[in-house]
């Protein structure tokens, strides 16, 4: 009898604290690779920043543009994809009571496909056969093996997506009448968006492969760009999706609060899935070949994405204020003092959220024609990108590491590593302030992006950019220190931290929370609406670009 009671107790604690070792191994492999990629990509970023400021001459066999291509693809595609799959698989494993064996296999298959793809992409870049910048649209033409590598990466992402859908569907069948736990709901939304967003780029790459092999002579450049950006911007929002899942579900628990509203979080997920893909069009707002009326309508499409973001901002600060007031905060802003600023698990995502205020505002500014003309293809865009992805998303990812790795390895976050984490977060923030700030300012002055250091024959305007570029290099150096610290912290938490029990922090709803309506689970409807919105956004330009196609472009090798 006593034994049985002990067994039940053990089972219960396992359920509360335990993690399936097979699932943990999968996620930890993803994270290890992600942070190795971060280290390589970060090193390339440092080289790029120093070169851009005129402080470092890169050798001819590994020039600025190769570095840029590798930095972009490694960090934008590979690091984020590896992190996202690892994180959401862990989230599903925890909230759905372990991954189904077939889903775990899909996770490993996805990893294999992604690694094959990454190897092909990196090898072609190092061989100087694919210096096409991370946007890889024509007329610059890479080696066909570069594009084939990209296909493998997409196939890997799709395998991971299939795993997420399978696990969620089987859980729903086994738990009739229950809502999918919020974190897994986020996973389904994020992977659905990733899948919808990657359809366009897959079509693009499948057009580029025969062109790169020389089987077709020319390619439709405008169509390729359009298909690329239907993916390009969506991808940004997929990472943002991953980040806000932690803001909604994890951060409130860490600060000792409750979920703001389960329904609101789910509505944000649904809106992000439905509205996102046509938003990519604003990357082409100064492109020729589209009518003004169409561009004007696409401003609405782009701005509509801001709506769920504003809902998120409202919800998060409401949680902070509620939690602070529960702890006795007084006055208008007294709750700010009550937040656990010394806890890196809170500090990192909090700075990420604060950074999203100027980052989001900058993004809104760029959606319209006139302001976009001022900053288009200038370093401003790079600055904006580093603020949204490099700060908002990546700092949240870092924040997740401080509890997720100890949870998976059954270790603990020590006060020492917490302190080091705070130093890392501050180094990262200051580095980004310098680098992204300098990029924003010098971009307004006209300094172009994706350009190696040049004074344009000592032109006075170009020389006036130099002080800003110096700050860019200082920021880049600080960020590199941040990368080194973070990689150390991650591997320390994986292998060296003391054994212990760490919780997977999931916020509970408020006691008087209203029940989540059933319609939030109607994925069939959301998928159909997303397809309808995508076709509303893209049919007009795409049919026009195919029917009235401009003369196709032969390949160009600019390097």
């Amino acid at each position, binding site marked *: 009898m006593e034994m049985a009671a002990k067994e039940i107790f053990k089972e219960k604690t396992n359920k509360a604290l335990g993690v399936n070792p097979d699932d943990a191994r999968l996620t930890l492999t993803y994270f290890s690779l992600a942070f190795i990629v971060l280290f390589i990509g970060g090193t390339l970023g440092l080289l790029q920043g120093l070169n851009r400021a005129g402080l470092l001459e890169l050798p001819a066999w590994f020039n600025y543009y190769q570095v840029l291509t590798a930095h972009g693809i490694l960090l934008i595609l590979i690091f984020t994809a590896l992190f996202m799959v690892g994180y959401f698989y862990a989230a599903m494993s925890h909230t759905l009571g372990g991954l189904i064996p077939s889903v775990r296999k899909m996770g490993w298959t996805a990893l294999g496909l992604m690694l094959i793809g990454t190897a092909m992409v990196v090898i072609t870049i190092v061989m100087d056969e694919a210096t096409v910048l991370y946007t890889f649209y024509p007329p610059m033409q890479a080696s066909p093996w570069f594009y084939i590598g990209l296909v493998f990466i997409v196939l890997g992402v799709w395998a991971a997506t299939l795993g997420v859908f399978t696990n969620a569907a089987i859980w729903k069948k086994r738990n009739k*009448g229950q809502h999918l736990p919020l974190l897994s709901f986020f996973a389904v939304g994020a992977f659905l968006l990733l899948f919808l967003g990657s359809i366009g780029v897959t079509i693009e790459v499948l057009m580029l492969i025969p062109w790169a092999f020389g089987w077709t002579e020319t390619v439709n450049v405008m169509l390729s760009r359009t298909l690329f950006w239907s993916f390009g911007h969506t991808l940004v929002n997929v990472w943002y999706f991953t980040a806000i899942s932690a803001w909604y579900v994890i951060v409130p628990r860490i600060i000792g609060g409750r979920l703001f509203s389960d329904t609101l979080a789910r509505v944000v997920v649904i809106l992000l899935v439905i509205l996102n893909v046509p938003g990519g069009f604003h990357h082409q707002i100064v492109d020729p070949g589209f009518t003004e009326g169409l561009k004007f*309508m696409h401003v609405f499409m782009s701005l509509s994405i801001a709506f769920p973001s504003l809902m998120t901002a409202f919800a998060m600060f409401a949680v902070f204020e509620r939690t602070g007031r529960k702890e006795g905060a007084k006055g208008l802003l007294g709750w700010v003092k009550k937040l656990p600023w010394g806890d890196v698990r809170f500090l990192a995502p909090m700075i990420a959220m604060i950074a999203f205020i100027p980052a989001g505002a900058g993004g809104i500014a760029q959606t319209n024609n006139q302001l976009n003309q001022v900053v288009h293809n200038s370093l401003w865009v790079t600055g904006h990108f580093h603020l949204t992805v490099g700060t908002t998303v990546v700092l949240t990812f870092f924040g997740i590491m401080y509890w997720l790795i100890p949870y998976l390895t059954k270790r603990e976050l020590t006060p020492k590593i917490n302190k080091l984490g705070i130093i890392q977060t501050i180094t990262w923030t200051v580095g980004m302030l310098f680098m992204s700030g300098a990029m924003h300012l010098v971009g307004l002055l006209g300094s172009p992006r994706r350009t190696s250091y040049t004074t344009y024959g000592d032109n006075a305007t170009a020389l006036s950019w130099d002080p800003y570029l110096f700050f860019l290099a200082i920021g880049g150096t600080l960020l590199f220190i941040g990368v080194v610290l973070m990689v150390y912290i991650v591997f320390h938490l994986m292998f060296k931290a003391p054994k212990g029990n760490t919780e997977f922090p999931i916020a509970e709803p408020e006691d008087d929370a209203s029940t989540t309506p*059933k319609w939030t689970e109607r994925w*069939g409807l959301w998928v*159909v609406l997303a*397809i309808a919105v995508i*076709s*509303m956004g893209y049919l007009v330009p795409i*049919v026009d670009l195919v*029917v009235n196609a401009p003369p196709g472009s032969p390949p160009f090798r600019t390097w």
Partner: protein
Amino acid sequence: MKQAVYGLGLYVFLCLPPVVTLVESIMSFHMHVQMPLLIIVGILMAPFFQKKLSGFFENWNHNGVPGILLFTIILAYWMMPRTMDEALTIHAVEIFKFISLPFLAGVPLRDSWRKLGKMGKNVIYIVFSIMFGFMGWLYVAAPTQLCNNYLIVEQKTLGWGFLAFALCIIIYFIQLLFIDESEYE
């Protein structure tokens, strides 16, 4: 009644001259944005009419069939290339569009939908996916300009839009067949 107010707001927005000019300047926005939004206006306003004219709906749309029939007729009318053309050139037809789509299509659709059985709904899904598929084929394949006011390329775009709509209905219909919503209650 909140929904009715939102519907009215959307209606007023859609009636604003610059909005009308902008959405009607592109063929597929005319048919696939403005017209569906006008129907949505009716769907949102329906509770107001159902409350005010409950006897009328009870007498004339008891089982939902007359309402859905009216909805289908109005939609079929607005799918004809000529009617869209006339809406741009004849003022009375444009006014008829702004009245017929919300009040003779949107309102009856909402009133009928709940009254229809599963069979009735399935018939509607199938009929409309076939109808949209046919329209898609017509607009994509027609070698001549069907509307005086729009170019052939816009016509083809509209055709692909119809095919996308048909695809959406088919996907939705198929998932309804395979997913039993009541299991998730």
